């Protein structure tokens, strides 16, 4: 496509390894093993290619990126490439010394995830005892070093009541931003809809809490909010539009337009081990599959919002309707919307145990039906 613009952001999933086991983890069910991960030099080459392609923002993520022993040299390589470098972490695996080394390497920003606002909730959700206390320690070190901090609170039925406290904690930690993200039902979260789907009332209450806090904390804390999309009228503009602003590199080097794209079986992904990032971005079949609006079906094809939300999320269309080119079933214009609403209400009213994410290389457990 000739009108494709360069990407702005790249998410580098350095590893799928993680000490936590969040039941909503966005990693694929089929996790990459450690021996499949790209090595330091390959990542450094990918960072340089990304900068040449026009990427400005690099997000180092996972899994838990601190599970990579070479995280410090990777940050150095990213900064050498001229990228704004953000670390997305649960905090587990970071020590004060490692944070100082990351500071010396030029790390620009830290995004710390929050599974709950107290140890009982956080450690239950993360499936890792002691995780919350450790995270609070890490937050303190981050503050001492002076890294700009974003707190990333992932919310669902079990912890949505903790939202006011999460916002308070962000202020106390000196964070400039908080991301209030309602769980998106992809990956592991899809198996946990009965256990985690928020109720419609919870979703409305969260809207109100966010609106009030935004007004009250203007100039102190920026609040970015991802509402519960099963309870919204229109879908999210996924990834800013497929293949338009961002790309994701998986631990094994596969390049995807979105972190959940591997759930679409018809797509073919290329790998940075043997193909240049530029060729993948401009000519890759997976990137061109849903770029722009040409691929759309009705009702998207003739909708006035088609360049606003680009028909929503392809992975959600795949997961729920079974057709990745269908209108996102969240949309009120989708013929599947009524079924989705009924489903969302049923999930919200159900009760189920959490199905935890597993460690890479272990068999996937069957969900508790």
């Amino acid at each position: 496509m000739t009108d494709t613009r360069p990407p702005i952001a790249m998410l580098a999933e350095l590893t799928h390894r993680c000490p936590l086991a969040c039941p909503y983890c966005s990693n694929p069910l089929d996790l990459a093993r450690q021996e499949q991960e790209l090595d330091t030099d390959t990542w450094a080459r990918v960072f340089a290619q990304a900068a040449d392609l026009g990427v400005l923002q690099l997000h180092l993520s996972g899994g838990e990126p601190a599970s990579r022993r070479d995280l410090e040299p990777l940050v150095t390589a990213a900064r050498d490439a001229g990228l704004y470098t953000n670390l997305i972490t649960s905090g587990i695996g970071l020590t004060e010394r490692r944070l100082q080394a990351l500071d010396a390497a030029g790390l620009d920003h830290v995004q710390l995830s929050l599974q709950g606002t107290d140890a009982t909730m956080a450690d239950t959700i993360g499936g890792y005892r002691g995780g919350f206390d450790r995270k609070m320690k890490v937050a303190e070190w981050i503050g001492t070093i002076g890294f700009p901090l974003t707190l990333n609170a992932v919310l669902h039925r079990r912890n949505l009541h903790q939202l006011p406290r999460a916002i308070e904690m962000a202020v106390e930690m000196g964070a400039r931003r908080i991301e209030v993200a309602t769980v998106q039902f992809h990956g592991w979260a899809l198996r946990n809809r009965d256990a985690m789907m928020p109720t419609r009332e919870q979703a409305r209450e969260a809207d109100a809490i966010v609106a009030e806090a935004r007004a009250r904390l203007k100039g102190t804390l920026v609040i970015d909010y991802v509402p519960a999309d099963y309870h919204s009228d229109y879908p999210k503009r996924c990834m800013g539009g497929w293949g338009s602003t961002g790309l994701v590199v998986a631990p094994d080097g596969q390049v995807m337009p979105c972190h959940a794209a591997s759930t679409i079986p018809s797509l073919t992904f290329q790998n940075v081990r043997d193909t240049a990032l530029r060729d993948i971005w401009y000519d890759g079949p997976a990137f061109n599959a849903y770029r722009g609006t040409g691929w759309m079906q009705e009702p998207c094809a003739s909708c006035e919002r088609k360049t606003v939300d680009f028909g929503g999320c392809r992975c959600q269309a795949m997961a729920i309707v079974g057709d990745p080119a269908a209108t996102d079933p969240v949309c009120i214009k989708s013929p599947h919307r009524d079924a989705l609403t009924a489903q969302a209400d049923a999930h919200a009213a159900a009760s189920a145990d959490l199905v935890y994410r597993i460690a890479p290389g272990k068999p996937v457990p069957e969900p508790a039906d």
Partner: protein
Amino acid sequence: MDPDAIPFLPRGVRLHHDRVRDAWVLLAPERAVSLDPVAHAVLSEVDGTRSLRQITAALAARYDAPAEEITKDSSGFFKALHDRRFLEVRP
């Protein structure tokens, strides 16, 4: 905003020349704000030592424009950056 306050870019926010798009951007946590030449000229004056008043006076002299007009244009821009925590001020 107080005209005698001194604006500065906090840690994690920086001006960056985007060589691929040949344009200036302000890089901040999770954001890249593209800057038009005016916005870039204004932000280039932010050095952490001069007040808003001194900065607008310098811009007025440089672009041969009335200081009130510059103040009007730049204060909205500074305020918007401040609200998003891309710019801090000290008294």
